[in-house]
């Protein structure tokens, strides 16, 4: 940077009111603040959506699920032996056999498809933190029901729910026989993951077996890992250890494509919102062009005094660039505020059946702040530099003559 540029930069920073806060900059500044704010809020909210969804998926599903290769139930002995082997791994946080099957939940004439799930050891069951009313521990004859399922069936805590298990493995000439029992709703959970909150009914293992009419056994073993990202590798090693009569399903098999889709969507939204910054950039082009016309005399005098065109161009770039950078930073603060407001608002909730979760949360990360800053600054810098080419073409003599005329 030349001495002249340093001198002006120092002046702009020392006396911002005199040099930077110009009326002609207002439209440009507002445009940048709004566009960067929206871009920034969009990214923070989508990041929030992505991380909330990932967190809920990882909390709602086992990191690795182990079941029989032929789809049959695993015996009590099998699950005990497998869990004993698996818990020897340092990477394994918990290992619990579960029984899960599809059934119908009913309240008078209201019927909904649901999924009954029970855990051998309740202490490690993942629904515990999400109990919103009632209690997490249940006795025989009691169930815990998802918040949305409860609402759809028009039930409340303490009411009775009828669970109907159609025995598809035993179809008779008279139709599909079913077993059904009434249970008392002892707890309600709300995990935020819509599919679970809309489908899941938790019961004791004994009640589930009675309903299924089976003496013993579990559908699969659910394993939680210390690091969920290790699931694909560990799943392979577990099967090598347990034998190929079992199969392992790491969480990413059923959830990764969804998360990848959300990530793609996040960056698509980012690109679309970046066009807003580009539109604000048109304002920047217009402001810089106006400033050049307004400051023709200044340009003429600097050229007369021997300043090179590129130096004058840089002086203007520094001046407008400083205003633009300040605007981008204010825009980012505005974006954070906007995402905070969206997070706190109560009048709009996401449709859980479409978006999997029903609450909108923002996740503000340093890399995203830097990405917004860099992309917005780059777009605006290009928009500043385009009209500055005019300075090269300005003829001192024409400006002086115009002033005399």
């Amino acid at each position, binding site marked *: 940077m*030349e*001495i*002249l540029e*340093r*001198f002006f930069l*120092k*002046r702009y920073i020392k*006396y911002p009111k*005199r*040099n930077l806060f110009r009326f002609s900059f207002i439209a440009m500044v507002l445009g940048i603040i709004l566009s960067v704010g929206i871009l920034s809020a969009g990214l923070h909210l989508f990041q929030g959506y992505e991380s909330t969804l990932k967190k809920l998926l990882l909390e709602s599903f086992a990191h690795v699920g182990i079941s029989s290769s032929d789809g049959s139930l695993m015996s009590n002995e099998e699950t005990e032996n497998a869990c004993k082997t698996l818990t020897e791994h340092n990477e394994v946080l918990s290992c619990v056999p579960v029984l899960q099957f599809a059934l119908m939940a009913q309240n008078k004439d209201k019927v909904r498809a649901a999924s009954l799930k029970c855990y051998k050891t309740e202490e490690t069951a993942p629904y515990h933190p999400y109990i919103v009313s009632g209690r997490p521990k249940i006795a025989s004859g009691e169930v815990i029901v998802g918040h949305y399922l409860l609402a759809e069936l028009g039930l409340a805590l303490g009411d009775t729910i009828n669970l109907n298990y159609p025995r598809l493995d035993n179809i008779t000439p008279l139709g599909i026989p079913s077993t059904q029992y009434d249970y008392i709703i002892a707890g309600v959970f709300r995990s935020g993951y819509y599919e679970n909150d809309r489908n899941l009914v938790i019961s004791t293992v004994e009640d589930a077996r009675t309903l299924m009419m089976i003496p013993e056994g579990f559908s699969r073993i659910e394993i939680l890992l210390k690091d969920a990202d290790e699931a694909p590798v560990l799943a392979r090693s577990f099967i090598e250890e347990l034998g190929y009569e079992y199969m392992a399903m790491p969480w990413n098999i059923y959830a990764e494509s969804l998360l990848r889709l959300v990530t793609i969507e996040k960056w698509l939204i980012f690109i679309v919102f970046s066009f807003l910054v580009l539109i604000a950039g048109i304002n920047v082009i217009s402001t810089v062009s106006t400033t050049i016309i307004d400051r023709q*005399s*200044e340009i*003429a*005098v*600097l*050229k*007369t*005094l*021997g*300043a*090179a065109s590129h*130096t004058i161009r840089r002086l203007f770039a520094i001046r407008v660039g400083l205003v633009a950078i300040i605007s981008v930073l204010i825009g980012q603060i505005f974006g954070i505020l906007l995402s905070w407001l969206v997070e706190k608002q109560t009048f709009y909730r996401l449709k859980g059946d479409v978006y999997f979760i029903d609450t909108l949360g923002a996740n503000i990360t340093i890399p995203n702040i830097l990405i917004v800053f860099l992309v917005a600054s780059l777009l605006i810098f290009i928009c500043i530099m385009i009209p500055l080419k005019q300075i090269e073409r300005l003829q*001192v*003599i024409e400006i*002086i*003559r115009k*002033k*005399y005329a």
Partner: protein
Amino acid sequence: MILKASHLSKTYIDSDQRIEVLKDASLEVNAGELICITGKSGCGKSTMLHIMGLLDTPDSGDLIICDKSIQSNSPQASSIRNQELGFVFQFHYLIDDLSATENVALPLLISGINESSAKLRAKELLVLLGLEQRLNRYPNQLSGGEQQRVSLARALANKPKLVLADEPTGNLDPLHSNEVWEMIRKLNHDLNQAFVIVTHDIEASRKATNSYELTDGRLIQLKA
């Protein structure tokens, strides 16, 4: 010899009309000279000065500044304008956002002199021109005469060999006009500073060491 303009010609095309403002105009400027060029409005005085200041290009003719043949589009033109020439215009052309001292320091900063030395030299010049009370004032806080004196100080900042002034008092009332003329004569006398001044003030031009009149595109020497 500081500057030698030989056989300069310049023609403008205005609509269908061809206006020949300079025809074979020649001028030589030596150290310590105070040259005035007079003439009617629109006769080409300013054009002559702009060509000599490397702000405009003649259609034909040669220009030698400090023994170097040069044109306004030469790569060295901006450095010669910065180092060897000083400019004063009818309008002061001071930068509104800079104080008097900072405006005067501009040519020094452009030439690469550090800010503190540039400001020191600017203050010395402003004191020399009687503006010691106006060092930190902005152009809009100065009178017309003061603005033009700041502009004169700026023209002298890099100790140029020649100051080119285009109607320096054209915008001033008689009192301030006289003040500026006195200052120019003082600088010419005390510092041996060479000036070429374009003016329509025939009375003032009589005090110059050399004076010329531009008539029909030709420079006619009135006083040697």
